[in-house]
């Protein structure tokens, strides 16, 4: 009975969030003639690709009932390292892999702290958020790394495959992989089981420690990948990149139907959530609305989504 209710709710949420995105697109198209153009839509997709890339892994982590505040800092350190490695003569593909691996290692550290040492996830990742950002500032000495990067450095973030930006193509592939993980693999199923009831999951024979650590490594890896892509898009390694990024991702995941208590959420919903936030920002920018108001709108949309979730929850239960 409860499973049916959760399924009904998830289905209703999906329709609702897609409906909200459609209404938003229609309103923005009417209000801003320049909104619905190929260039602008690809811009928004490119701008949201970092959120979607990290959001894919963060969604699974939040479904399992955990949290990661360090993704913005991982983004910064991986981005700056990818630039530094290139300036030190490392071939570009290798520097990309190495900097992403640094993200994975930080993810492993987070997993160790949360899963093995039982430090609450918010506290553990808050700690790594500060330390990792600090290390990024230290290794760059506060400067932006842009000399000696070569022309190919910007290909990952700014290149095209035919008419499609490479970053959008990669994001689509990553989305499909994580969509598959969520629906067709044990890791996806275990994430829901652990988030739904950790004790029951443990008693059912699920190795909750291994799953937890794998999820944190995935988050670190994807945050590192986002940072590498962002550094390439900007053409610099800068320790300031990704300030507040963790909140952008959480907003997208929550808008997509994830519950902060775990056990609920979907990668498809997160993508729609990220697009809603991206299109709101882009549309308001095109209309010349001051960024201060944009933050107000973002906050209202987030709280509105959570309130709607609560209303739906109580109706389905009642």
């Amino acid at each position, binding site marked *: 009975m409860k499973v049916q209710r959760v399924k009904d709710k998830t289905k209703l949420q999906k329709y609702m969030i897609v*409906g909200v995105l459609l209404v938003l697109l*229609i309103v923005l198209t009417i209000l801003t003639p320049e909104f619905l153009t190929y260039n602008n839509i690809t811009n928004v997709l490119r701008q949201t690709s970092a959120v979607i890339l990290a959001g894919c892994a963060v969604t699974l982590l939040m479904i399992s009932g955990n949290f990661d505040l360090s993704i913005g800092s991982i983004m910064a350190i991986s981005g700056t390292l990818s630039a530094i490695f290139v300036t030190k003569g490392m071939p570009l593909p290798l520097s990309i892999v190495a900097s992403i691996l640094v993200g994975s290692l930080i993810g492993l550290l987070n997993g160790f702290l949360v899963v093995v040492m039982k430090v609450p996830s918010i506290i553990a990742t808050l700690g790594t958020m500060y330390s990792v950002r600090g290390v990024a500032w230290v290794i760059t000495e506060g400067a*932006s790394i*842009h000399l000696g990067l070569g022309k190919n450095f910007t290909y990952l973030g*700014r290149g095209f495959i035919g008419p499609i930006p490479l970053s959008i193509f990669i994001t689509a592939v990553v989305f499909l992989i994580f969509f598959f993980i969520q629906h067709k693999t044990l890791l996806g199923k275990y994430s829901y089981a652990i988030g739904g009831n950790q004790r029951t999951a443990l008693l059912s024979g699920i190795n909750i420690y291994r799953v937890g650590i794998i999820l944190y490594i995935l988050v670190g890896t994807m945050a590192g990948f986002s940072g590498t892509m962002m550094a390439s898009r*900007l053409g610099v390694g800068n320790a300031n990149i990704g*300030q507040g990024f963790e909140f952008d991702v959480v907003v997208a995941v929550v808008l997509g139907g994830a519950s902060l208590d775990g056990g609920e959420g979907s990668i498809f919903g997160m993508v729609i959530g990220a697009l809603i936030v991206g299109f709101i920002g882009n549309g308001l920018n*095109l209309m010349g609305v*001051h*960024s201060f108001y944009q933050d107000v709108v973002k906050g209202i949309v987030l709280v509105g989504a959570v309130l709607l979730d609560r209303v739906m929850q109580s109706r389905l239960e009642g």
Partner: protein
Amino acid sequence: MKKFIVFISILVLVSSVVFAAGARETGEKKLVIGQVFWGLHDSYQQAHQKATAAYLKELGINYLPMDGQMKPEAQTAAMEDLIARGVDGIICQAYDQASMEISIKAAQEAGIPVVSFVNISSGDVKYPTVEISEEPGAVAMGKTIGKIFLENFPGKQLKVATISDASVEWAHNQRTLAFLRGLKEVVPTMDHIFNGGKSNREEAYRVMEDVMQRDRNVNVVFGYDAENGLGGYAALEAAGRGVAIDGKPLTEIVASVDGSTPEILKVADPRTSYMATLALRPRENARACVDLLLDVINGKTSMYETGKNVQVVSFVIDGNMSIAETEKFMKDEWDITIDIRKEIGL
């Protein structure tokens, strides 16, 4: 039901596109200028935006200001939005010059001219700039503060703390290091005991508390913008310092760059030890940016021109400037009508 909803959504979407296209065709073609700011949380940047909006309104040009939020990624996204919007020209001030230059190049490739405010072309990407000539003003302010120090603290060791973010190279070099050069010319034995902080009042307050904890004898404080100067001064005030009697500082001298209203009010008040501010000129800068961009749009200057940069000179406001002169400056440059005597309770 699902198919019906999808059909209706597509129908509405298509009709909205047609409606929007119609609106575009019938609408009157007006020039549109976009601007990407360094960060609109800052009082100078807000005044610059206000002055640009007023000037463009006078000229009958539409204006799209965007907040760079002191983030390279936010600035890049804003530039992309303006390019996609197909504006006729862009004015920008880079937080990170290297990443901004990639966006400038993208705009130029789309046929959109860009005029930079402050940042000068590094050579790889070429564009015209409105420069603020801050360095001579900052050196002059350093000398002024040095003289005030010698007059008021004879025989004492000058210990200066600078609240300045070294990662923002242009500001740190043109303001902080230039100020220190001027100060050193007058007081060669000066001791630079600290540099740190961001462009953030809260952070500056915290930094100043730490500086006082480290060395209570700090007697010159410099903030490289209003946020840093005022944040540092607030910490001094909270510690019972920052006081002057009839314009004579008791424990230290404070100076900063920007010339915003709160800074000017502090400088004008003979009971504070805030002695000088290097005044930027938002109205003059805003007009210079627009005029230069219009020259490019009208074909008088090439969008790749780097040899015709415009320089707007900043100047020092200190105790020697009369209240009437200061009020006139604020009206002319910041569009603020203020009764300074009333505001500071003289």
